[in-house]
């Protein structure tokens, strides 16, 4: 398997507050990596670093052999290889669903409009939203917005997809429809890095689990089922316990 993403000795701080210390990670093509951990552990910051939205103090991130450096000119080229979906969807409110999807392919990748529209409609159809193409984001439910955001990211044909707690802002009954979409993507062979609090979803989708706490990787394993049954570290045990209730 070919290595798509490599992170070595990543170090990130906000002022005097160290958020990520000496993080190392390698992700192969087609792999689905799920990052879990308590809030404030640095998992969202980590995703933002991968996309060059945060500057890092030291370490190297490369995607498909190209280094990620925030603020550098080539960063826009690199970002086209990395799709990102945010917790708060961040659709553009002044554009319709279809316009949201085709804006970047047309303006950034200079694709033909007809071609972009055709692909957008196909993908919207796959997530069950083809009939909503002329709606504005305000007219959609949270789950629908999030599925559009996923389509918008997919349309750029990214090598790797980042999901930053994409269901955290959703009503419970809408979580499912979004997770279904992500599961389908995983089955189709997409490379994904997912930050989530949905443990059963993590178990179902992950090829590998990374447990992050206080800015460092505490546990990393391909044995996904085993992790949730019997985590090796005390910290992971303690964290997983917060999701269950005893009578």
């Amino acid at each position: 398997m070919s290595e798509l993403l490599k992170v070595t000795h990543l170090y990130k701080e906000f002022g005097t507050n160290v958020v990520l210390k000496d993080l190392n990670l390698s992700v192969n093509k087609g792999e689905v990596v799920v990052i879990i951990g308590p809030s404030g552990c640095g998992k969202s910051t980590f995703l933002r670093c991968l996309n060059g939205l945060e500057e890092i103090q030291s370490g190297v991130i490369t995607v498909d052999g190209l280094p990620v450096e925030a603020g550098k000119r080539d960063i826009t080229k690199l970002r086209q290889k990395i799709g990102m979906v945010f917790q708060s969807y961040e659709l553009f409110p002044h554009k319709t669903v279809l316009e949201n999807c085709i804006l970047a392919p047309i303006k950034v990748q200079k694709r033909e409009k007809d071609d972009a529209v055709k692909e957008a409609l196909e993908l919207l159809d796959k997530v069950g939203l083809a009939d909503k193409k002329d709606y504005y984001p305000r007219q959609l439910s949270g789950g629908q917005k999030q599925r559009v955001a996923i389509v918008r990211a997919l349309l750029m044909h990214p090598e790797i997809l980042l999901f930053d707690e994409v269901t955290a802002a959703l009503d419970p009954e809408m979580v499912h429809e979004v997770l279904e979409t992500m599961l389908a993507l995983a089955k189709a062979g997409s490379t994904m890095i997912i930050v989530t609090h949905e443990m059963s979803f993590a178990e179902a989708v992950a090829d590998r689990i990374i447990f992050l706490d206080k800015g460092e990787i505490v546990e990393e394993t391909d044995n996904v089922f085993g992790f949730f049954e019997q985590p090796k570290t005390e910290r992971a045990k303690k964290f997983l316990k917060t999701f269950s209730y005893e009578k």
Partner: protein
Amino acid sequence: MNTDILIEYLPLYKDALFLTLRIGWQGIFLAFVIGLIGSAILHFKIPVLKSIVGVHIELFRNTPLLVQLFFIYFALPKVGIQVTAETCGKLGLGLLGGAYMIETFRSGLEAIPTIQTESALSLGMNDFQTLWHVILPQAVSISVPGLLANVIFLLKETSVFSTISLMDLMFTAKDLIGMYAKTIECLFLLVVFYLIMLLPISIIGAIVERRMRYGQFGD
């Protein structure tokens, strides 16, 4: 009130209105341009220019237009900068209005959350594409009510133009009162003409504001 006098004075007021509108709109256009450029400078935090814009805002927002006009019209010629009364009016209105427009556009830009910029960037857009396709369309529509409020404010401010001997509505009223003492008729026409000038914009402003508040894109 004497209707004959009203009719007799009407053409004088009409000319004055046109003069006010002509200078007013050109001054406001200048203010608009200054506002766009200034707010872009502040948005991108361009060094040096940023400080100049800051000083301009503070100077012109903290002094009366009347004093600004006196300075431009009476003081600047002493150091070799001579402008006509009309140019002075446009310039004064433009500089004063610019200071307000910059603030209006800037708060429009600031109202767009950073994560909108980030989501555009994460789609591979560069800074300019992000500003042009994503941030600016949203910022401008947020700024519209503030913009209209500025237009009304600036048109009202034109009432000091008479002090630099521009024959605007105030000048005409004061002149006629001084000469013929038909005070009531003159004041009546003064009010009517200001209403003609400002009421339509005020109504448009109220409608726009209501639409902005209750509905946005797609409602």
